[in-house]
C-alpha cells in the first residue's frame, strides 16, 4: 500500500467504494446521490455542524451522552429518552464492539441473543447490520443532531451507511480509532481507511452538504499527557482536512488539573489553527472535552462529583461540547435513567457556568506554552520522518516511538513512555521513551515529578503511574502512597 497525505482521487475513491459496499449485504445499493438528497433535507436543528457553529458563536458548551443498545426499537427509545428526559443537546449512537471489528456475523448473534434475553447483549448499536433502513429510522425518530461514536479501525462501510442515513457527524480517526482500540491493525492501513471516511465527507462537502468530523481525543483515556493527545489530534485534523473535511471538532480527555485542562484545550485550538493556516486548509474548528475517561468510582454520588467537575472544567475551558459520563460508569453500560442523570448533572453545571471562563494567569499562560512546545517537538519530528508527508511521517513516528500512547493495546505502539501526575495532579512524562523533547522540557517534567516524589517520600517510579491509574476510582486525583492516606 502506498500511503500519502493526499486527497484521494475520484478514481481511487470509487474503485475502493465498490469493494467497501460489498463488505456486508446492507452496503449494496448505497447511492451517494440518493444520500445527498436525503442529507439536504436534514432540518437545521438536526444538523451537527450548524448546532456546533451556533454553540461556538454564542460561547455555549453543549452536552452529548454516549448511548447504544442492540435492538432498534430499544435504541430509539433510549435516544428519545435522553433527548426528552435527559435534556441532551446532541445525540450519539454508540456502536457495538463486534461492528467495530467488522465482525457482522457476531452482531447477528448478539441481536438474536438480545431478543431472546430481553436485554441488550451488545455494548452498542450494530448500525451496519441494521443498514440504511434502520439507521434512517433512528434519525427520523429523534429531534437532535446525530453522530456515530465507535472505535472502528476500518469504518468505511459504517461511515457510508450512517451519513447516508442523515447522521451528520462521525467520530474517529486513523490513529485514535486504532492504537487505543486494536492490537494488530497496521498504522498505515488504518490511516488509509480513515482517509476514505474523510474523503467521503469531503465528497459531500463538494456536493454542498456540510458534515462534522471528530477525531477521538482521549485515546486510551488513561493519563495521556496533553501534548501527546494534542499532537495526535492535530495530525488527524490535518489528514481529514486534506481529504476535504471542513467542519472539524478536535477533542481532549480531562486529566483533572484545572489549569492543565484549560491550557490543553486552548493550546489545541491555537496550535491546530496555526497548522491549518500554514497548510492553507479552510476548516471551521470546534472542540470537544471528554469528562474523565479513566477508571471511575463505583459509588454513584462520587461519580456525580467526577461528572460535574468535568462539566465545570469544560465550561471554564470554553469547549464547544462535552461528552458525558454516567453514575454507572464504573460498573456497566448505563440504564437510560442513569444516562439521563449524567446529562442533567452536566447541564446544570454547564448552565451555572455559562459565560464563565478561567481567567488569564501566568500559570495558565505557562502551561499553554509548555503544551505547545512539547507538541511542536513531536510534530516537527513527525514531519521530518515523513520528509514532509504527514501520513508517512505518522507511520514512521509510531515505529520510532515518537508518537507513543500510554497503555495502548496496539503492537504498533512503542509503549515506552510512562506518564504520572505531578504534585498538583497535572499529567507529566515520567519516562520519555523516544519522544523527541528538548533537554529543557525533559528536565522540567522531571523536576515536577521529583517535587511529588519528595512530598511523598518515595522515588519517582512506575508505581506512581500505577497508583495514579486507581486514584480517581478511589476518590482522589493523585495516587499517594498508602501511608499518606
Amino acid at each position, binding site marked *: 500500500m502506498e500511503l500519502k497525505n493526499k486527497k484521494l482521487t475520484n478514481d481511487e475513491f470509487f474503485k475502493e467504494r465498490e469493494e467497501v459496499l460489498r463488505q456486508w449485504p446492507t452496503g449494496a445499493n448505497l447511492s451517494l446521490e440518493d444520500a445527498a438528497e436525503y442529507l439536504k433535507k436534514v432540518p437545521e436543528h438536526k444538523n451537527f455542524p450548524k448546532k456546533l457553529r451556533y454553540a461556538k458563536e454564542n460561547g455555549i458548551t453543549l452536552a452529548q451522552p454516549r448511548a447504544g443498545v442492540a435492538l432498534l426499537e430499544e435504541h430509539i427509545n433510549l435516544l428519545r429518552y435522553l433527548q426528552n428526559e435527559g435534556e441532551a443537546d446532541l445525540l450519539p449512537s454508540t456502536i457495538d464492539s463486534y461492528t467495530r471489528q467488522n465482525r457482522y456475523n457476531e452482531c447477528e448473534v*448478539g441481536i438474536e441473543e438480545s431478543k431472546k434475553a430481553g436485554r441488550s447483549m451488545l*455494548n452498542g448499536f450494530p448500525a451496519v447490520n441494521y443498514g440504511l433502513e434502520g439507521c434512517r429510522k433512528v434519525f427520523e425518530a429523534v429531534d437532535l443532531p446525530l453522530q456515530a461514536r465507535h472505535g472502528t479501525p476500518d469504518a468505511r462501510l459504517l461511515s457510508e451507511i450512517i451519513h447516508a442515513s442523515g447522521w451528520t457527524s462521525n467520530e474517529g480517526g486513523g490513529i485514535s480509532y486504532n492504537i487505543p482500540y486494536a492490537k494488530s491493525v497496521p498504522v498505515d492501513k488504518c490511516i488509509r481507511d480513515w482517509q476514505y471516511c474523510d474523503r467521503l465527507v469531503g465528497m459531500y462537502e463538494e456536493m454542498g452538504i456540510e458534515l462534522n468530523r471528530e477525531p477521538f481525543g482521549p485515546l486510551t483515556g488513561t493519563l495521556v499527557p496533553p501534548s501527546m493527545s494534542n499532537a495526535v489530534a492535530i495530525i488527524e485534523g490535518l489528514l481529514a482536512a486534506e481529504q476535504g473535511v471542513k467542519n472539524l471538532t478536535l477533542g481532549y480527555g480531562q486529566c483533572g488539573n484545572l489549569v492543565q485542562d484549560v491550557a490543553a484545550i486552548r493550546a489545541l485550538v491555537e496550535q491546530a489553527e496555526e497548522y491549518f493556516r500554514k497548510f492553507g486548509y479552510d476548516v471551521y474548528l470546534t472542540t470537544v472535552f471528554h469528562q474523565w475517561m479513566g*477508571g471511575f468510582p463505583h459509588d454513584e454520588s462520587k461519580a456525580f462529583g467526577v461528572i460535574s467537575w468535568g462539566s465545570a472544567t469544560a465550561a471554564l475551558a470554553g469547549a464547544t461540547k462535552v461528552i458525558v459520563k454516567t453514575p*454507572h460508569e464504573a460498573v456497566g453500560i448505563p440504564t437510560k435513567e442513569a444516562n439521563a442523570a449524567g446529562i442533567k448533572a452536566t447541564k446544570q453545571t454547564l448552565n451555572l457556568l455559562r459565560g464563565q471562563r478561567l481567567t488569564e494567569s501566568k500559570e495558565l499562560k505557562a502551561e499553554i506554552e509548555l503544551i505547545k512546545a512539547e507538541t511542536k517537538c513531536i510534530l516537527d519530528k513527525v514531519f521530518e520522518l515523513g520528509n514532509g508527508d504527514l501520513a508517512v511521517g505518522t507511520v514512521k513516528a509510531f515505529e520510532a516511538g515518537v508518537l507513543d500512547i500510554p497503555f495502548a493495546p496496539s503492537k504498533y505502539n512503542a509503549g515506552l513512555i510512562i506518564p504520572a501526575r505531578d504534585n498538583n495532579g497535572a499529567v507529566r512524562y515520567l519516562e520519555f521513551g523516544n519522544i523527541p523533547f528538548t533537554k529543557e522540557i525533559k528536565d522540567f517534567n522531571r523536576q515536577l515529578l521529583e517535587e511529588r516524589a519528595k512530598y511523598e517520600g518515595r522515588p519517582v517510579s512506575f508505581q506512581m503511574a500505577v497508583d495514579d491509574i486507581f486514584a480517581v476510582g478511589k476518590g482522589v486525583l493523585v495516587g499517594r502512597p498508602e501511608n499518606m492516606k
Partner: protein
Amino acid sequence: MQNGKTVVIGVIGADCHAVGNKIIEHALKENGFNVVNIGVLSPQEDFINAAIETNADAILVSSLYGHGEIDCRGFREKCDEAGLKGIILYVGGNLVVGKQDWKEVEKRFLDMGFNRAYPPGTDINISIKDLKKDLGIE
C-alpha cells in the same frame, strides 16, 4: 521469588481494554508468577494454545466491554477438549452489559465452568490470594 506457577492472562473477544491487563501482569509478576500475557482482543483459542504451550496452571480471563457472556460460552468445554481438564479458570472485569445483580452474574459464569468470577473493580490482590490458595502455594 518465583513461585513456580504459570498463569495465562488476556482479554477475551473483541475487547480492547488494555489497562487492567497490564496491571494484572504487573501484580502477578510481583507475586512470583510466570505470566504469559496474550493481550487484548484474544479469542478463546489463543488462551488455550498459550496454556498448552506453556503448561500453565491457570487461565485468568478478563472481559471489560460487556460481551463477556457471549465470548466466554463453551470455554470450559474447549479446555476439556484440548486436554486442559481441570485447569483453573478465573474470569473478571465488567462481565456483562449494564449494572446487573452480581450474585446472578456470578452464577452464570460459575455455571459456565469458571472456578471463580470477580465483579467490576475487583482489587487484583484479592484474586491473587484466592489463586494461591487454589494452587496450594500459600
